């Protein structure tokens, strides 16, 4: 979504240039294209899954033209750290350079199945008109739920967004729970609801190494062996996996 907006803005500017408009006019156009920010709004996040936990969520209101990830493009190292190990500090660092409005870890830890958490964001005096939300799915190798740069609504009301599970494309979905959560380290860092042991590993690196829609965990039904440490009757999901409810006050 963000890239489309970027493209359209670029197209508008290009068209403006073609027609002989100067830089001043182009600047005015850019100002006009930025909608007024919703100053004060609440964001509620719901875990829609049956057996998946979320690592601490990152909520960010950020400026036009910025995004945390793009489908069909490689994950940034900061996104990779979030998706493989739940570490949002790198993304927070990038967002601070954008003067983004950020809320970290509104659930105060893991968010269990069917549980929700709420946070308030205030973008008064900022250019932060886009909202993104990300968190890692546990137990997975590099799955994350993502809301990608939606335009924050400006009219008071309640707005609902359903989030799919993305695959960061950075780690093989071997489904071995071994504590490996650092970027580039194979394996799943933790299984909060429990898991099997002794798996031989499901598969090698992703065929698609860009950010894409996750193909779902496969699991198996052998708690002490088999290919996967995940339980096929517990750790699968279907999209959507999370819901974000924005209430503009």
């Amino acid at each position, binding site marked *: 979504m963000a890239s489309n907006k970027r493209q359209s803005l670029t197209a508008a500017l290009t068209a403006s240039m073609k027609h002989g408009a100067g830089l001043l006019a182009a600047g005015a156009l850019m100002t006009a294209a930025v909608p007024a920010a919703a100053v004060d709004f609440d964001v509620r996040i719901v875990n829609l899954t049956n057996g998946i936990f979320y690592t601490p969520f990152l909520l960010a209101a950020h400026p036009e033209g910025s995004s945390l990830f793009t489908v069909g493009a490689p994950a940034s190292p900061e996104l990779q750290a979030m998706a493989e190990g739940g570490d949002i500090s790198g993304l927070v660092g990038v967002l601070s350079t954008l003067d983004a409005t950020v809320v970290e870890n509104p659930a105060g830890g893991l968010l269990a199945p069917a549980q929700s958490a709420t946070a308030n964001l205030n973008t008064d005096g900022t250019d932060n008109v886009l909202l993104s939300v990300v968190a890692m799915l546990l137990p997975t190798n590099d799955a994350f739920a993502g809301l990608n740069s939606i335009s924050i609504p400006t009219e008071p009301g309640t707005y609902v967004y359903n989030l799919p599970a993305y*695959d960061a*494309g950075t780690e093989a979905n071997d489904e071995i729970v071994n504590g490996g959560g650092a970027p580039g380290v194979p394996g799943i860092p933790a299984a909060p609801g429990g898991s099997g042991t002794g798996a031989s590993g499901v598969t090698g690196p992703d065929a698609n190494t*860009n950010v*894409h*829609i*996750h*193909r779902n965990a496969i699991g198996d039904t052998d708690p002490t062996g088999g*290919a996967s440490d995940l339980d096929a009757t517990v750790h699968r999901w*279907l999209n959507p996996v999370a819901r974000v409810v924005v209430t503009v006050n």
Partner: protein
Amino acid sequence: MYSKKAMKPLAALALAGLVSACGGSGSDDPIPSVPPVSQAEFEVSVVNLTNNQPLSPVALVAHSGDFRVFTIGSPASQGLEVLAEGGSNEDFVEAARTDASVITIVSGAGPIGPGGSEVLSFSVPESDAASLSVSLATMLVNTNDAFTGTNSLDISSLAVGASQTMRGIAYDAGTEADSEAAGTIPGPAVGGEGFNAERDDNADQVTMHPGVISNQDGLANSVLTSQERFDNPVVQISVTRTL
């Protein structure tokens, strides 16, 4: 700006130009007396969101009215069957050409790999833009007969410079059993048969696709692995009006 009436003489002239020996009336008159037809131009970006399902060459149809790629619960057209089983859009495009509501058709340059994308461009007379929709079809080639796309995405209110984005889910053409067996799937993971005129799915009707099982989930004779599995959505389609 320019009405449809203004367009038609130009189209007639262009046709006369193609059929060179026509020698119609006023053949000595210079062409510039006809005002140019104002065109609305669009770019359609298609992103493959799957892990290991290359998308067959896209068939993109710009149209007005009620053109449909498929209807849930109805049998797939012959063109859609060929596309969804074998990845060739030729018959689908051929059939669309005869549909009165179709304005223009664009075929993708080639398959779109996982994580890949393609931008297709087309233009229509400005007078057609106010009632314009696009439809799109492409096969998930490491399957028996899965396809994705969109039915009549309404882009009539798209302003110049604006974009509209949607995501498509996987459908089952209902024309071939989802056996995942050796020799039945045309994609690179298998390299088997594409189109076969026999219709042997559960029922001869288009439905949502139930997903790939794979040989890692109990379908012992499947030639697919966990890499070919997918969840929805499987494609992202963004339409930008550029002029």
